[in-house]
């Protein structure tokens, strides 16, 4: 059996028991055989990946010591298809960008390449990252590797499915209201939404700019830490990226749960949570307690108002960001002799139902007569949500919640009921509104489906989240389980 994690691959490369070409060939073969059933990938750059792998084969053959090659040298990765890759199609899961090849790379893409990663391909998503199931992709849904009749979560469902299925050890997603954490939870893997500003957004196609953040998917906590280190840090191209030093996340990961104070909000153990999910999170807290963690009850009184506030703020920002898709500079254009008609027809033909719904909602919330009643009030709620967390972090180091209130749902189950779909993100959205880091880790299974636990931390304290998650992972077997497709 070949190793599956990024860190294990690197070790195998260094001891010459495996070459990057072997791993890239195997990944491309696995994708060709199994991805038609899952539809995680929208684009696979096989030739380019093989060429890069051959270069790393050579460098490993020449490298004597482990210090000479970068951290992800020869490790295959997948990128959500809303991050720009120069000359390689970037669709955002939308017809309006079909065929577009960006003229530049996103900063995260550049940083991954600098770290030696080999980009295998681009993954499926809800159109412009708007959704919780990856069903709103114009290119068709992605299926959950644990049960192909179910959704993988969204919007970064393709990246999560690609890692869970074992196609690649690492992938990037973006998270505006839960789009990394929800699919990580639904696919039984690790997914991190870093602190707002921790990772550059340059080249990430904007959805809601005050909330968007790029984050890693990995099979375990250590690999997640490895990928975060590679992409984090100040970027002159993104004025909102933070000038805060990037620690060596792996160095402190093994310090254990001893002395950690973990808070469970009273508000999230309510009736909306499926009993098997609540049970799994309760068990996880027992594990922390058994390993020296101190579990306390806390309160986030405004958490219920976070979801309605988000569905005013995020669409408002989206309606502005998506104004650029007008048929002028790139992508689709509906032919017309009249400029206004050209804009409006291009957007009618190019956008799917969910994107139109959010553009309409956001335009309404920002329009004259409604701005104060909706948008401004939502921004005031945002302040209260952030204050709730600030108060909590005066008592505890980590806030523990489920990732989602339910198990992965069936494809089609919520596709025509936007409000029900939105409720999937009830525990992830408050974290984006407050700009905090949130880490999803697998914490159990029910009916053969994975359950995710979410750990939320102080701004720029990803280290504590990774440390807590690693301690939990060492004490539990969940991260070693793989879905049937990966075992096949």
């Amino acid at each position: 059996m070949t190793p599956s994690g990024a860190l294990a691959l690197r070790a195998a490369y260094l001891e010459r028991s495996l070459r990057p070409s072997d791993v890239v060939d195997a990944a491309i073969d696995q994708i060709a055989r199994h991805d038609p059933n899952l539809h995680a990938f929208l684009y696979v750059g096989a030739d380019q990946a093989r060429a890069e792998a051959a270069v790393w084969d050579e460098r490993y053959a020449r490298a004597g010591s482990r210090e000479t090659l970068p951290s992800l040298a020869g490790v295959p990765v997948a990128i959500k298809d809303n991050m720009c890759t120069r000359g390689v199609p970037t669709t955002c899961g939308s017809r309006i960008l079909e065929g577009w090849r960006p003229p530049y790379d996103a900063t995260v893409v550049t940083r991954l390449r600098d770290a030696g990663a080999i980009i295998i391909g681009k993954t499926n998503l809800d159109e412009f990252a708007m959704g919780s199931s990856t069903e709103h992709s114009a290119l068709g849904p992605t299926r959950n590797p644990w049960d192909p009749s179910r959704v993988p979560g969204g919007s970064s469902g393709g990246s999560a499915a690609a890692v869970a299925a074992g196609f690649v050890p690492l992938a990037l997603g973006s998270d505006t209201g839960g789009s990394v954490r929800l699919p990580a939870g639904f696919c039984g893997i690790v997914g991190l939404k870093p602190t707002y500003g921790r990772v550059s957004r340059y080249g990430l196609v904007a959805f809601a700019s005050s909330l968007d953040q790029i984050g890693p998917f990995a099979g375990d906590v250590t690999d997640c830490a490895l990928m975060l280190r590679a992409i984090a840090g100040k970027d002159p191209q993104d004025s909102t990226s933070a000038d805060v030093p990037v620690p060596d996340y792996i160095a402190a990961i093994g310090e254990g749960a001893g002395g950690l104070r973990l808070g469970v909000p009273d508000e999230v153990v309510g009736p909306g949570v499926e009993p098997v999910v609540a049970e799994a999170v309760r068990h996880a807290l027992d594990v922390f307690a058994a390993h020296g963690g101190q579990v306390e009850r806390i309160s986030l009184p405004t958490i219920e108002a976070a979801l309605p506030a988000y569905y005013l703020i995020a669409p408002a920002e989206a309606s502005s960001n998506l104004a650029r898709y007008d048929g002028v500079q790139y992508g689709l254009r509906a032919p017309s002799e009249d400029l206004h008609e050209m804009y409006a027809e291009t957007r009618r033909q190019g956008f799917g139902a969910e994107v139109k719904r959010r553009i309409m909602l956001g335009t309404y919330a920002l329009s004259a007569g409604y701005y104060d009643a909706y948008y401004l009030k939502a921004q005031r709620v945002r302040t209260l949500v952030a204050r709730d967390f600030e108060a909590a972090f005066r008592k505890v180091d980590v806030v523990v919640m489920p990732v989602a209130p339910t198990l992965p749902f069936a494809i089609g189950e919520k596709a025509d009921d936007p409000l029900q779909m939105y409720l999937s993100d009830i525990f992830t959205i408050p974290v984006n509104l407050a700009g905090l880091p949130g880490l999803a880790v697998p914490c159990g299974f029910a009916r053969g489906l994975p359950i995710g636990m979410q750990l939320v931390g102080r701004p720029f304290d990803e280290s504590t989240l990774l440390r807590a998650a690693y301690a939990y992972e060492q004490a539990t077997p969940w991260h070693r389980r793989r879905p049937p497709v990966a075992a096949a």
Partner: protein
Amino acid sequence: MAIDHETVERVAHLARLALTVEDRERFADQLGHILEYCARISALPLADVPPTSHVVPITTVLRADVATPSLDRDEVLAQAPAHQDGFFRVPRVLEGG
């Protein structure tokens, strides 16, 4: 809470979004439901709470004043639906002439 068709049309115009008759019906219904849900926040005492537009206090950030290569013009224009003489080409904007 229902949104009338006139409002849907007005918002669609502001968003430069053409709607089919079916879209208009569906959005009137769905937007009404979503806004009704969002209106829950009106019950909170918010008058004295300052709004947050961004979690990071943003001031104008300037890059070092150093010339760097721009995107390649031909590469950018090659992605445009229509271009001419180094410009994006669009339908006539001004009447007459």
